[in-house]
């Protein structure tokens, strides 16, 4: 994520809108010069390169864009390779130097090197190998080009703004089924709204809708897990390209707390959304998907009278589409059906709203199973028998008790 000050410098305000200064083709000449500078500095101290980069490049670069590009290049992984872990080398060498006060430097190093069984040169190199200014400039990935660096910078700008949002509205048309599934898999706190026209016709009940609007809670609205949640939110962008059209509006802030600005992403933005990947390839969806499959298997083992539908159809709950993770159906009596949600990230307010919507839509046979490790604020959880909570994994016995078996 880009630092707040850099994000401010790299955006302009148009009324209540914040518009990032995206990089484009006209930036390629100076990006090329910057990459050349990095390639020349490979293996040198980072501080030496930083000093050189204070001077103008061979091709003039806009200050804010240059800083974003440098920030990205600096965040490239640098693995410290040394014969001894630098912290161990420091601990042994400097303590030995303190105890051998009259011994020359070479004797101290030779003594410690023989103790650690490493060459003196390697020991000396390890002493400050991991310290910022002494770190070496890594070799750049072979695939890195001015165009790919510009794209990475644009995505960094967009994802940094998204991660500083309090609420997001994402409208998508076409076949947004994958988008909805992914939002659930990522555990995002959201409500899915159907457009009025389709809802009035009543023809998409139980089918994938052709147009939806997702109201998603933003990371800044949460007091816990905001960082992990922000990464999950950014990775949802990977799915919007599967829809025919979309528009994402995030309310975000560039200063502490306020004022709030609108940040909009549309298909034409230079983000190559169809290949978008989160900056950090963490997969927060995986634990949730695993929990769901494990619970379904455990439940079927524990309750032979019940069957589990793993991808239940959507239900309309007063204009809001209710998607459940599982549906439990009694084998002998198909009218005994329960919808089960294994929530990802959650807040007490969101759970209360979900249950209220289901009550209004007469979807009373619903169970909300909450993972205590993903609680995103401290508000008291509503006292409702349909709410179950787990610490390590959902328990089929608790669900059976709730549904009266």
């Amino acid at each position: 994520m880009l630092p707040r000050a850099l994000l401010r410098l790299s955006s302009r305000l148009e009324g209540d809108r914040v518009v990032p200064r995206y990089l484009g083709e006209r930036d390629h000449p100076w990006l090329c010069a910057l990459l050349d500078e990095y390639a020349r500095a490979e293996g040198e101290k980072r501080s030496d390169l930083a000093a050189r980069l204070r001077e103008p490049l061979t091709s003039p670069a806009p200050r804010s864009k240059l800083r974003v590009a440098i920030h990205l290049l600096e965040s490239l992984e640098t693995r410290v390779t040394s014969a001894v872990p630098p912290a161990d080398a420091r601990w042994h060498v400097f303590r030995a130097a303190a105890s051998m006060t009259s011994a020359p430097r070479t004797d101290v190093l030779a003594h410690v090197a023989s103790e650690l069984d490493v060459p003196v040169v390697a020991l000396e190199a390890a002493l400050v190998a991991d310290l910022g200014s002494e770190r070496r400039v890594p070799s750049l990935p072979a695939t890195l080009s001015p165009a790919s660096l510009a794209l990475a910078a644009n995505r960094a700008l967009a994802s940094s703004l998204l991660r500083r949002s309090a609420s997001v509205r994402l409208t998508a048309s076409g076949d947004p089924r994958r988008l909805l599934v992914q939002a659930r898999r990522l555990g995002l706190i959201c409500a899915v709204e159907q457009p009025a026209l389709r809802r009035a016709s009543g023809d998409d009940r139980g089918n994938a809708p052709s147009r939806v609007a997702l109201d998603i809670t933003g990371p800044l609205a949460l007091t816990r897990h905001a960082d992990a949640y922000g990464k999950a939110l950014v990775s949802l962008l990977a799915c919007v390209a599967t829809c025919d059209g979309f528009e994402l509006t995030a309310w975000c802030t560039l200063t502490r707390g306020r004022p709030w600005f609108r940040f909009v992403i549309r298909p034409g933005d230079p983000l190559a959304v169809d290949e978008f990947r989160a900056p950090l390839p963490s997969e927060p969806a995986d634990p949730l998907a695993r929990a769901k499959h494990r619970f379904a298997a455990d439940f079927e083992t524990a309750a032979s009278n019940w069957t589990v539908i793993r991808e239940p159809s959507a239900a309309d709950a007063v204009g809001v589409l209710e998607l459940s993770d599982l549906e439990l159906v009694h084998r002998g009596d198909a009218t005994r059906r329960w919808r089960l949600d294994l929530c990802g990230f959650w807040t007490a307010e969101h759970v209360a709203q979900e249950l209220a919507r289901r009550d209004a839509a007469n979807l009373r046979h619903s169970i909300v199973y909450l993972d205590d490790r993903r609680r995103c604020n401290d508000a008291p959880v509503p006292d409702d028998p349909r709410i179950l909570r787990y610490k390590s994994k959902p328990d089929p016995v608790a669900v059976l008790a709730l549904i009266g078996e």
Partner: protein
Amino acid sequence: MASRSSEGRLALAAFHRSRKMLGFTRAKRDAVGALLARHRDARILVFTADNDAACAIAVERLVMPITCDIPRAERDRVLDAFRRGELRALVSSRVLNEGIDVPDADVAIIVAGAGGAREHVQRIGRLLRPAPGKHAVVYELVTASTTEARRTSQKRRSLAAPRTAPA
């Protein structure tokens, strides 16, 4: 404003280079070595203008560096070792200035300082904690006939000026 034009950026870069050179000259390198040798039985804090100089002293003179890149656990272990006398000297650019409970030292060597009078007072204050029979020594290394000499004398004048108590 200067960084908005190529000429300004060149001038700024040159300014930074000159400050860096002045902060750790060959003469200062030698002087640090001589002072560390002179006080080989004392507990010494060495202050530099930047991390590069701190790392250079660490490697050349085998003095433990404390920079912002040193993880907290290692820093705590190092400060404990300094307290117990297992380490005799520490070198740092700014980390030791404030916010860290640094054990008493007997000698301070100020190789260079990027800050003003406040930073200077904080650095010296690390040594002047009252203790019975304590005798602390502060060395400030200044390159003659440079802007550094002028800044140092200005700093001293401002520290020596009488302060009026708030009404």
